[in-house]
């Protein structure tokens, strides 16, 4: 049981950064950013490659920078070149496959053997005992969440929020919405890159397919979190919902993995169904309401 909780917390903290990224792009900017899958692997590849070269800490920042770059390309495609936003993400994502292979030295997976990672380094400090991985990951996640919370209340953050809320009003306030979209997507993908970096060093390996459908899982966690935290009331609450949603999702995942309650092969289908249902819920509710009323009155 302790094993389950520990794993769920660890993965929940690491992957909550992907959800945080989706919160920025999908909720705040109102853009479905599909760079996420490739960007996660990019972070992982850069992180593991640099850790192999003996720079585990630098690796984390390198991965964040790489994520920023990926976000910039997606933003550039949609704001300056007029590529529709969803397509821009897919195009970047496709291109990233090759970039990721390159970052991993043209092999489809890369492992760390005896090299130091930020986790092995942190273990030496003795903080957290056997929970050291959880402690470090949670610290990273909470730090990022505090940073995003702070950022969203700055003038630049307010402009980014307004961009997703009413783009005309942003240009009327003498801010270029192209700029705010770019900054927002770079910040979001930086979080995704960091998530990949932590995941890579934690499991001591990088795999070219590690990012598959991470965007859907991230969205599922976002929605689970929002449902549990009662809607979208304040930014702070929303950000905490990202973490909570991930921990709950990973808890369920771990339990399923342990008990084989649902065949593990079916998990992606389950996730997809959960996301589709959760996003469809408001319109289904409305239709059901109309249907019930019609039945009663006719």
């Amino acid at each position, binding site marked *: 049981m302790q094993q389950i909780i520990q794993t769920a917390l660890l993965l929940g903290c690491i992957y909550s950064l992907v959800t945080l990224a989706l919160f920025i792009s999908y909720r705040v900017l109102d853009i479905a950013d599909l760079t996420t899958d490739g960007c996660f692997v990019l972070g992982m590849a850069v992180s593991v490659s640099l850790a192999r070269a003996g720079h585990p800490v630098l690796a984390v920042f390198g991965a964040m920078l790489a994520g920023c770059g990926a976000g910039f390309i997606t933003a550039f495609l949609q704001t300056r070149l007029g590529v529709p936003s969803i397509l821009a993400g897919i195009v970047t994502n496709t291109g990233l496959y090759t970039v990721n292979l390159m970052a991993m030295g043209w092999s489809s997976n890369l492992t760390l053997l005896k090299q130091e990672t930020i986790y092995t380094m942190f273990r030496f400090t003795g903080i957290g005992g056997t929970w050291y991985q959880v402690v470090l990951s949670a610290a990273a996640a909470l730090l990022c969440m505090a940073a995003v919370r702070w950022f969203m*209340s*700055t*003038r*630049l953050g*307010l*402009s980014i*929020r*307004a961009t997703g*809320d*009413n783009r*005309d*009003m*942003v*240009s*009327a*306030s*003498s*801010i*270029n*919405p192209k700029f705010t979209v770019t900054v927002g997507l770079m910040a979001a993908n930086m979080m995704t890159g960091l998530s990949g970096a932590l995941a890579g060093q934690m499991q001591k390996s990088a795999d070219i397919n590690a990012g598959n459908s991470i965007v859907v899982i991230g969205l599922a966690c976002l929605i689970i979190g929002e449902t549990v935290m009662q809607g979208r009331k304040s930014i702070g609450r929303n950000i905490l919902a990202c973490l909570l949603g991930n921990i709950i999702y990973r808890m369920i995942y771990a339990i399923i993995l342990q008990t084989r309650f649902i065949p593990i092969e079916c998990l992606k289908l389950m996730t997809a169904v959960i996301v589709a249902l959760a996003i469809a819920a408001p319109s289904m509710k409305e239709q059901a309401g109309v249907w019930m009323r019609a039945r009663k009155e006719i």
Partner: protein
Amino acid sequence: MLVIDHVSKVFNPGTINEKKALDKLCLTVNDGDFITILGSNGAGKSTLFNAIAGVFLADEGKIVLDDVNITFDPDYKRSKYIGRLFQDPLKGTAPHMTIRENLALAYLRAGRGFDSFSRISKKDEEMFREALKKLDMGLEDRMHTQVGTLSGGQRQALTLLMATIVPPKLLLLDEHTAALDPAAAEKVTQLTKEIVARNHTTCLMITHNLHQALQTGNRTLMMADGNIILDLNDEERKNTSVDELLRRFKEGAKTELSDDRILLSE
């Protein structure tokens, strides 16, 4: 001073839907002018505003504001000097953000260097509260309310405040009271007059109310087919009746008046 020099705009050029929205239009607006603009649908009133605000670039001609050629400036740069209100009260505010946050964004036009990472200060907040008090709607006690929960009139009044919190060189009012109920429209009109008078703001206002057009401001323009067909100064307006204006309007529209949006009443 705003100078519009032979500005043209053609929509869908080379297609069957080609429309000459502005046709070598020339206009000089003096500082402190409050101009009302009349014209039937499709006369080019909103297109003129879009060209001034930079929503699109003019096909030809130039636009000069206070001796600066702004013809090729994008809209967000022009918004530093040009405030604009639309008919739709939802257009000017961010609904999921609070009154305080909306005002803070509008106040960015004051542009005090690079302070992107600064937060809303106590001083700013105090200033916002004072400004809201002047609207006399009780909004100063609801600074943390989401704007989406306000009524249309309150939102339009807030938008007016946001457009003028940093006094613009030019204020464009595009039928900004037309979608409001009579009481709210009266209130917003009153506020507009107050704010414009207080700041001596140069102002262009589109209206469909002939009576209001003659009563408000100091100059009245009438547009048709992308050009100005009538330009009355304050003196001339005094000698013009609403009937006379309506006759000119029909002449300009060249068709029998089917435009029931023209309001002759008070």
